[in-house]
């Protein structure tokens, strides 16, 4: 089983409880007995955001599963070289820990998260160290791409091409995004909506292009690199609001992203 450690807490002098986002089973909480020791079947693999291969005894009755073995596939140690990249990585952990449910696998989202962490780690490396052909991301924009992928994968794909009420195509000027319907609404349909907010044209167009690119398997780099910072900032704000609206609370790290 393959998983990403999205939360770690010490349970006792030697044991640890880890929350894992696994590729095969979605989110799992497991007890790792002896997980704080150096010499254990887990080595040092149970650190936050480690990508590990693990063996688990699953409890069917609910409650904690028992982690028996784990080894590291990747440790994104480069993240700790840059505070922006690290903050982005914390937000990845927070979103995955919060949004994914148990027994609800999302392998596509899992791969997207790993890709995002790799890009963040690259961003943390000093100029020149970046691997050939790897773009150097702004961590805040990279998170936007992951958040859109998360929304699409979990069934909250934002509808940004036309009105969710009457299907009228959005063309020019600012448009209203209705949080409850998860999409744009035209002037006529706006009255039926509870919460909506006006998005400038450059904002909804950038977001629309990003959604299209992600659905085609892209990472949005091309769309973002030709956009203006003001549009990117508007997209970040809108996404922060949309995510908070769906979950009923604001992610702790969202303040960082909206800066």
């Amino acid at each position: 089983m393959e998983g990403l450690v999205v939360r770690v807490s010490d349970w006792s002098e030697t044991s640890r409880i880890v929350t894992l986002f696994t590729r095969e089973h979605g989110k799992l909480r497991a007890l790792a007995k002896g997980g704080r020791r150096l010499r254990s079947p887990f080595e040092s693999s149970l650190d936050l955001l480690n990508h590990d291969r693990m063996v688990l005894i699953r409890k069917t009755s609910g409650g904690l599963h028992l982690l028996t073995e784990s080894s590291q596939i990747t440790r994104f140690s480069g993240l700790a070289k840059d505070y922006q990249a690290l903050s982005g990585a914390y937000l990845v952990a927070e979103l995955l820990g919060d949004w994914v449910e148990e027994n609800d696998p999302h392998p596509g989202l899992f791969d997207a998260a790993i890709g995002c962490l790799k890009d963040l780690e690259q961003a943390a490396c000093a100029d020149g160290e970046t691997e050939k052909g790897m773009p150097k991301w702004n961590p805040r924009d990279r998170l936007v791409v992951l958040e859109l992928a998360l929304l699409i994968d979990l069934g909250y794909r934002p509808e940004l091409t036309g009105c969710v009420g009457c299907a009228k195509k959005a063309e020019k000027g600012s448009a209203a995004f209705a949080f409850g319907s998860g999409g744009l609404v035209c002037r006529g349909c706006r009255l039926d909506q509870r919460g909506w907010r006006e998005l400038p044209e450059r904002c909804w167009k950038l977001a629309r292009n990003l959604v299209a690119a992600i659905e085609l398997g892209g990472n949005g780099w091309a769309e973002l690199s030709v956009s203006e910072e003001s549009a990117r900032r508007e997209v970040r704000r809108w996404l922060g609001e949309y995510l908070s609206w769906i979950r009923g609370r604001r992610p702790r790290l969202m303040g960082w992203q909206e800066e």
Partner: protein
Amino acid sequence: MTMGQRHMAGDRGWSSDRRGQEESKPLLERLQEMLGALPGIGPKSAERIAHHLLAASREEVFELADALRAVKEKLKRCSRCCVPTEAETCFTCLDTLRDSGLLCVVEQPRDQAAFERMGTYRGLYHILHGRLSPLEGVGPEKLTIDQLITRLRGGEIREVILATNPTLEGDGTSLYIAGLLGHMNVRITRLARGIPAGSVLEFANSQMLADAMDGRNTF
């Protein structure tokens, strides 16, 4: 004694017993809950400890209670290094044989204790009392970073050794502090990491090897 009297006596006895139980039950439950909230103590252990205390002598239990109270009332943080101490300044900070130009920054008093057991480090310490953990809402204001900065402004310290845990959060905490100290005239170092001495290369994982390669030094 008539039937009625005996019944009344019995009744009284029963009801006073029950009252006793009702009064002691929440107390005992409360104790178990508080014990259970301690690290590493599950509900079963909490129950066992609570009943042990119930059976123990008054003196024993009061001594424990006094010790608990004293820890909170008499122990404060050292005015310099923030380690828990009874005095205004701890013994380590007052030790004139120590190198006062060398400062080792650790997360917990237990980390300092580990370095002291090693016995070869002769500088001073600074205890952060935690690490930055944005996911748990632990920001810089919850640690003793302000005190650290004030201490460094004193100008006596030449080198700050960032000895936080080699975890993502520990490294992140060091990164944050290093950022704050960047403009100050101090040397900033961190602990070496890599392959444990006495082990063999072929069994070291790739992270250990990469760390060891990064941290190699002149022979």
